[in-house]
């Protein structure tokens, strides 16, 4: 079908543009009720009583740690509905059902909750000296890690700096939501998600069901950025309500609710000290990290501190490194993964220090980086494996035309390593019937258009045309297992699984058809193949960004252009890669200039609209140029990860460009508006 100048066959995105996408909120089932969640207006309070609706006294369930968050076991349990105390503004305390959203919202106003407000702990720096926010616990410390060996060193250049990346809201275009329906034995959940299998595990765990009794079907999903990889209390309540009432239940949140009660990313402080010689060669690195976990250590909070610390050295070689890291509780919504999830923090901290070394030694910022880049595979003193980096970075500088640009423009540079979340592998399934090939992966698209590479890979492996291939969203009933889509993993792992499944399907067909085998004959038969792909080799890859900055006529500094040069391995589809990177550039620049979650001292979220949260418009978007170094990986299809690269590489490069332009040092993201103003505020903007 053709719509204007866009051909739907060529570009199925047209489906979304035409309003033909099918999201959770589009689902209407017979007898469906709407769930509305009653939330705490306080950051910290005792709950004295809850009258009305489904309460925590009725549903005594706690949240499971699943999906991208998994591994965050803790002594503190996260109640689905709080019956005794609340720990952040927006925490669910009760839920009501109505025939439509309006009725449910009205009923929610009738629920009577009595609170006794307590003084919240908001500043992570003071969390450890504050009263524990969870009764019965010893302190607000959730995790502490020590990596590498402490050392004493005297070096000609010693620089220390305290750096911060403030909390930000993931803000996907589609907010969270689901529809649950229960037939007496099977709970079916239609989900806006990055991982149906994590939902299944989490819902079954919280509700005490067997996983076989839960089916999770992914709908078109309008963005996640990490926030839809795990599960939330609202999902459990909605599923419970459907089982209790034996009627379908829809829960879909407003933007306001999304901002209030969705896990937020970043919120990390890094105290860094680097030791170098006068030529900028690193001699040692010390770091002390502090992660603001929010109220419950479920959203990756427990492992993030160590995870960031482990990758601080990045793509460089350093003889000595020592890092300590703590994760602490505050009365805010949980910390969770946000595009990059720990990788951007490590890169920002390290790259800021590389620029400091350049400033202290007078050696060019690119040269400092090259001098510390590596010519062989290394394992850092903090335990992270890295590919050789020097040759790639020289390639990047040539691609950027760095030397000539540096003469003319205000330029910032970043080098970094992307560690894809390859752990755990991923699944894929193919089913041939009636002349068509259905394709599933264990985790699938929440906006990345995985269908494009999936069709290409299956078509190439089987030798059948792409137009007989139907890409399916993940459905736990259709495929026997899976992980999820996050951490730059789906093209490499899901893609690898598709290749393996295609090859085993082809082998089965060849065996059956013998000499009569041809790709066309595959389509005449009935075949199924499923594969679970686990890579054996390290898949860590490299990237570089260059940013330039300029002044507006009002004297405000803005990012002018961002160049990206990433080693994405064999590129499966250039247009999709560029689109994904461009979106990440927008988020990277947003994080430098606008995006942040601001809380008042009493714990109220002050950035509770999409505008105040700082999401950028096209007009604030710098020019974006995307380039790739196609150095094949050892995987069957040669791909490497790329999804998180821009949110890792853009912030340090853009920050440096602004720093060079304005001649001020920047240590905290986002940079405050007045610090981006070329007219010095202390001078009162007198100069025109």
């Amino acid at each position, binding site marked *: 079908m053709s719509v204007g100048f866009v051909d739907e066959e060529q570009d199925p995105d047209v489906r979304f543009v035409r309003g033909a996408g099918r999201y959770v909120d589009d689902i209407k089932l017979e007898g469906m009720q709407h769930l509305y969640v009653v939330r705490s207006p306080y950051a910290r309070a005792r709950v004295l009583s809850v009258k009305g609706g489904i309460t925590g006294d009725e549903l005594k369930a706690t949240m499971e740690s699943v999906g991208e968050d998994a591994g965050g076991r803790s002594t503190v349990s996260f109640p689905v509905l709080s019956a005794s105390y609340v720990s952040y503004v927006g925490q669910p305390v009760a839920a009501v059902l109505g025939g439509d*959203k*309006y009725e449910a*919202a*009205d009923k929610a*106003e009738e629920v009577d909750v009595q609170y006794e407000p307590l003084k919240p702990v908001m500043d992570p720096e003071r969390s450890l000296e504050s009263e524990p926010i969870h009764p019965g616990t010893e302190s607000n410390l959730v995790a502490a890690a020590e990596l590498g060996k402490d050392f004493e060193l005297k070096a000609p250049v010693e620089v220390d700096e305290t750096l911060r990346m403030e909390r930000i809201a993931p803000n996907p275009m589609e907010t969270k939501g689901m529809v649950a329906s229960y037939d007496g034995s099977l709970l079916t959940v239609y989900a806006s998600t990055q991982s149906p299998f994590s939902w299944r595990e989490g819902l079954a765990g919280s509700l005490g069901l067997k996983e076989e009794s839960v089916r999770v079907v992914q709908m078109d999903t309008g963005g996640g950025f990490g926030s839809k990889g795990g599960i939330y209390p609202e999902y459990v309540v909605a599923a419970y309500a459907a089982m209790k009432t034996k009627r379908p239940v829809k829960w879909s949140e*407003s933007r*306001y609710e999304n901002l209030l009660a969705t896990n937020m990313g970043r919120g990390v402080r890094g105290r860094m000290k680097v030791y170098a010689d006068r030529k900028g060669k690193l001699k040692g690195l010390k770091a002390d990290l502090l992660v603001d976990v929010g109220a419950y250590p479920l959203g990756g909070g427990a492992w993030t501190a160590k995870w960031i610390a482990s990758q601080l050295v990045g793509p460089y070689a350093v003889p000595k490194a020592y890092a300590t890291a703590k994760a602490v509780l505050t009365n805010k919504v949980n910390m969770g993964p946000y595009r990059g999830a720990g990788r951007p923090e490590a890169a920002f901290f390290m790259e800021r220090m590389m620029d400091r070394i350049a400033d202290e030694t007078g050696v060019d910022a690119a040269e400092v980086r090259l001098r510390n880049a590596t010519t062989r595979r290394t394992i850092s003193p903090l335990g992270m494996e890295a590919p050789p980096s020097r040759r790639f970075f020289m390639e990047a500088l040539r691609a950027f035309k760095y030397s000539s640009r540096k003469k003319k423009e205000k330029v910032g540079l970043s080098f970094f390593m992307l560690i894809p979340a390859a752990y755990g592998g991923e699944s894929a399934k193919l089913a041939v019937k009636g002349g068509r090939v259905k394709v599933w992966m264990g985790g699938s698209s929440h906006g990345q258009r995985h269908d494009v590479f999936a069709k290409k890979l299956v078509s190439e492996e089987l030798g059948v045309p792409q137009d007989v291939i139907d890409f399916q969203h993940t459905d736990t009933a259709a495929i026997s297992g899976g992980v999820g889509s996050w951490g730059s993993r789906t093209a490499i792992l899901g893609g690898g699984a598709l290749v393996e499944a295609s090859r085993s399907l082809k082998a089965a067909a060849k065996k059956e058809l013998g000499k009569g085998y041809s790709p066309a004959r595959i389509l005449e038969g009935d075949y199924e193949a499923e594969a679970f792909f686990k890579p054996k080799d390290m898949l860590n890859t490299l990237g570089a960004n260059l940013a330039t900055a300029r002044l507006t006529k*009002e*004297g*405000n500094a803005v990012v002018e252009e961002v160049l990206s040069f990433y080693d994405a391995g064999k590129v499966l589809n250039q247009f999709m890669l560029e689109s994904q990177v461009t979106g990440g550039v927008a988020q990277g620049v947003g994080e430098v200039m*606008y995006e*942040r979650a*601001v809380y008042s001292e009493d714990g109220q979220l*002050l*950035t509770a609209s999409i*505008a*105040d949260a*700082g999401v*950028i*418009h096209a*007009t*604030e978007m710098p020019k974006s140029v995307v380039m790739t170094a196609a150095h094949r990986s050892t995987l069957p299809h040669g791909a490497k990860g790329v999804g998180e690269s821009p949110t890792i590489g853009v912030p340090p490069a853009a920050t440096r460009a602004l720093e060079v332009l304005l001649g001020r040092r920047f240590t905290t993201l986002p940079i*405050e*508006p*007045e610090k981006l*103003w070329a*007219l010095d*505020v*202390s*001078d*009162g*903007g*007198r100069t*025109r």
Partner: protein
Amino acid sequence: MIPPRFEYAAPKSIGEAVGLLKSSGGEAKVLAGGQSMIPLLKLRLAAPALLVDINRIEGLDYIRESGGFLRVGALTRVATLSRSALLERRYGALHDASLTIADPLVRNLGTVGGNISHGDPSNDLPAVLLAAEGELAATGPSGGRTFRAEDFFVDTFTTALAQDEILTEARIPVPPPRSGGVYLKVEQKVADFATAGVAVQVSLGRESECAKVGIGLTGVGPTALKAKKAEGAMLGKKATDRKAVEEAGELAADASSPASDIRGTAEYKRGLIRMLVARGLDRASQRARRKS
């Protein structure tokens, strides 16, 4: 959007609308373009018992000069201001401001009357009216009355309008020859509220000195502000008189009382006011000289 329950009325005349407001006993709200009202309803921050939709009332959508005034009907959409050649030629500040309000979607629906009568200190049109010595006409149960813009903005979200009065017209005196106006706004991102905004209206004398000066400020106080001392400092002075311009900027910054918030610190906003007043005086004077 999930607002609480409300009654809805769509009267065809001002008299009928005013009657509905009066009989509601303070429980009704006027709905015009809805660009502030609908978000308030959606978040349940406003819960009026009755919504009086005035969009069907005819004769409130016009831009014309008569009786020594530019007259703009309260239901005129902001986008209509942007398209007016008359405004572009003679009412530069109003024209500029119309182009900086939110985004095109909001401007297509948002009305002049709504932007003014909402009493939001961050809305852009009030500063223009203050700079241009504007007036506002309203109709209530006992007939019409007129306010000076200066007397209209009482406090944040509070104007001099009674609950049963509807704003019908915004007026700006037709400027004498050699006059110019400008509206300058610094916003963090496009479509945002002003971090700070300044409207400047000048009329030049024979020696290109400022014979009349009006300065209005957006987003730096409980209401839009008229920077009277700054205006006084420029009287009889030229826009090229750096000392006078600096003093006016200083006085305008002193007159403001911005809050430190997510858009910046109070100090930063005062700094912006100094810069914008200086630039505004310069550009308004240029525009005044350009026209004869």
